[in-house]
């Protein structure tokens, strides 16, 4: 990053009970205007990080900087950070317009200016006609828009979003993802977004920080995260992947020769597999597996166990190397082989598509 970081977590730790760390040594730099998503399973520490940034939780050790200034001792209302909460947290006794006017009124803005800004913010989320409604009279999606508008109306440079789309149905959620993305692009605000939904993270973010066990497992743009996971947790958490355990036999030019536990030796990119004779797990995306048209060093025999027709592709569960959870996505197009249940075939992959990763506990 060339710019001075806009948000900077510097060695931040958080513990609630003095015995376990919920956040372990967090270091994260966020550039101005960036859309960064904290993604992880529940209990991974992502929401705690957001709350520390918002000022509702104090860091146990370490420092958080906003625009270069340490903010550990700045109370939440002076941080000027917009926030969208999981259940919107709209004030039920105020109308939509009053909700939006609230942050402006506490800033002692003039009445005419407040009215003007509220109208513009409502226009931005296409809710112009709903100013006089109470939140309870709105649908979930509409409440979501109001919450978004309220977090943006006082023009903060940083907006935090804590699983804001969690309560919406699938279609609306996808629609809102685009809308938030467009608003982000329009306004150029910095957004820190927390979610446990990987597709949401992949759709919206500039960079994604994958959290697990209080640690950022990988921080990368969406494509990198999917194509080049650093470790077994990320590979498993983002998208689908087939896992084959084995032992490293040799490493040459970044390519590892791995002896599979119940199969032949194959080649894989040596990403995070340690040295020769280490245990490792190979990770291959289901859509990168080739069936019957294999050339190169990586060939395995497989038996078709189950076929699931999904329209644009066919999901095929195979038994490979003694494991019967090997998934292959076969595109539904004429040039691809049609498989039948019980059939035996050859599967394989390009060495570049297979990554040898750490054998994290619980991933096999």
């Amino acid at each position, binding site marked *: 990053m060339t710019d001075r970081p806009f948000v900077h977590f510097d060695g931040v730790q958080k513990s609630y009970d003095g015995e376990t760390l919920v956040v372990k040594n967090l270091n994260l730099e966020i550039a101005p205007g960036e859309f960064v998503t904290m993604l992880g399973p529940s209990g991974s520490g992502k929401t705690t990080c957001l709350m520390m940034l918002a000022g509702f939780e104090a860091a146990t050790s370490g420092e958080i900087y906003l625009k270069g200034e340490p903010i550990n001792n700045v109370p*939440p*209302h002076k941080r000027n950070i*917009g926030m969208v909460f999981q259940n919107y*947290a709209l*004030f039920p006794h105020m109308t939509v317009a009053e909700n939006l006017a*609230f*942050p402006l009124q506490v800033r002692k803005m003039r009445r005419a200016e407040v009215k003007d800004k509220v109208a513009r913010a409502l226009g931005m989320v296409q809710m112009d006609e709903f100013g006089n409604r109470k939140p309870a009279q709105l649908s979930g999606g509409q409440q979501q828009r109001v919450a978004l508008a309220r977090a943006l109306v006082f023009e903060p440079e940083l907006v*935090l979003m804590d699983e804001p789309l969690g309560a919406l149905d699938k279609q609306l959620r996808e629609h809102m993802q685009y809308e938030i993305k467009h608003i982000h692009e329009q306004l150029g605000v910095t957004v820190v977004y927390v979610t446990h939904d990987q597709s949401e993270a992949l759709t919206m973010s500039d960079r994604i920080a994958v959290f697990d066990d209080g640690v950022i497992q990988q921080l990368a743009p969406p494509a990198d995260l999917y194509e080049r996971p650093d470790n077994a947790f990320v590979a498993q958490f983002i998208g689908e992947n087939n896992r084959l355990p084995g032992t490293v036999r040799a490493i040459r030019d970044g390519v590892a020769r791995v002896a599979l536990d119940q199969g032949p030796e194959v080649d894989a990119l040596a990403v995070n597999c340690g040295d020769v004779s280490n245990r490792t797990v190979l990770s291959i995306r289901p859509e990168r597996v080739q069936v019957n048209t294999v050339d190169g060093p990586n060939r395995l025999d497989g038996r078709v166990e189950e076929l699931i027709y999904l329209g644009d592709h066919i999901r095929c569960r195979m038994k490979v190397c003694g494991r019967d959870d090997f998934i292959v996505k076969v595109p539904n197009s004429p040039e691809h082989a049609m498989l039948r249940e019980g059939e035996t075939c050859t599967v394989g992959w390009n060495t570049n598509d297979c990554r040898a990763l750490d054998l994290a506990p619980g991933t096999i």
Partner: protein
Amino acid sequence: MTDASYHTAPIPGSPTDARGALLAADGTPLKAKLRESMRTSRRRAFMLVLPLLLFVLASFVVPILMLLWQGVYNSTYATDMPRSAPIARAWDGTSPPTEAMAEAMVLDLRDAREAKTIGKVATRVNRELSGTRSLFTKSARRAARMEAPFLDALVDVDEDWGKVETWGAIKIAATSLTPAFYAAAVDAKYTATGDFEMRDEERQIHVSLFWKTIWVSGAVMLACLLLGYPIAYLLAHLPMRTSNLLMILVLLPFWTSLLVRTTAWIAMLQSQGVLNDIFVFLGVTGDDQRFSLIYNMTGTLIAMTHILLPFMILPIYSVMRAIPPSHVRAAKSLGATNWTAFWRVYFPATIPGIGAGGLLVFILSIGYYITPALVGGQDGQLISNFIAFHMQRSLNWSLAAALGGILLVIVLVLYWLYDRIVGIDNMKLG
């Protein structure tokens, strides 16, 4: 869509009758069919509540209605003095008493003395004009020996029999359905000519007592709110384990007898009591100048506030528990200081609880009896103590009923006002 159009708009494609009502598959109107299918479950529900309904009717609703009826209907005189009552009612209330009135009176006095009902009758008339009690008992004793002309015979016994006021009081007592008791309950007097006039200044007690009762109830409600709100806030924001423990302390008074709690206050507050001893020990006051904290209004206020406090805390607490913490956080993230976040976001959300608690405490204290009776002394008596007095001592049940009726009306008016201002749907009792 209006109600009417809702009922008449048929579902397209469904069979309807001539008036457009939906028909069920077998051709009967759908509404009748629905009623029929619901009948069994409705009957079962009714049978389940029937015992309670009967109990409440017999022990609560009917006695209250009977008592309220007594406030406007008292037939003591009409029953026990059957001859003179109709004549007195027909009398115009201003002309001099006639011989016919006197004759009926003497005959009734004789019978009443025989039947030993003369005391009741005399008391009834005495309520309208004091001094008539002895007039009646005295005359009844001599009625047996009286001979015509009866008016002169009566005036011989006491010249009050010749006065219009005496017969006016008889006329009022003879009218069974009368507003006299309600008039008395608001310190007015219903006269024989059908007018109302206020009582003398020094004999007006009820209206000022009503005002005092309302004032005390308001003060107790306010004190409960001021003391209870912070406690409810504390309870709602502590971890569940701690707050449950503290909640027991709040509920503890519910498990001890009201009488015990009130007498405990006597031990605390009396001039040789715990509180005064502490004051003397600390040098706040001298040993010979101990505070009088009990048997006056102060005692009533302190004891009632303590006893009614849980009724304020519980509804507020349950409302506070339901307020998502994210609301206050949202307010702060939007730039509100702690105070602004509390006052503009948190406090409005607790209003349903305050309303419920306030109404509960107010209505309970407006009819409070035991505590003022025990610790109120002369000064701290409320309207309910007067009602009890008229029920038990003066045996003027009709006046007690009229006072109770007015109390009921006040409560209903308050309830209505609350509904208009806050909305009864906003009330949360827990």
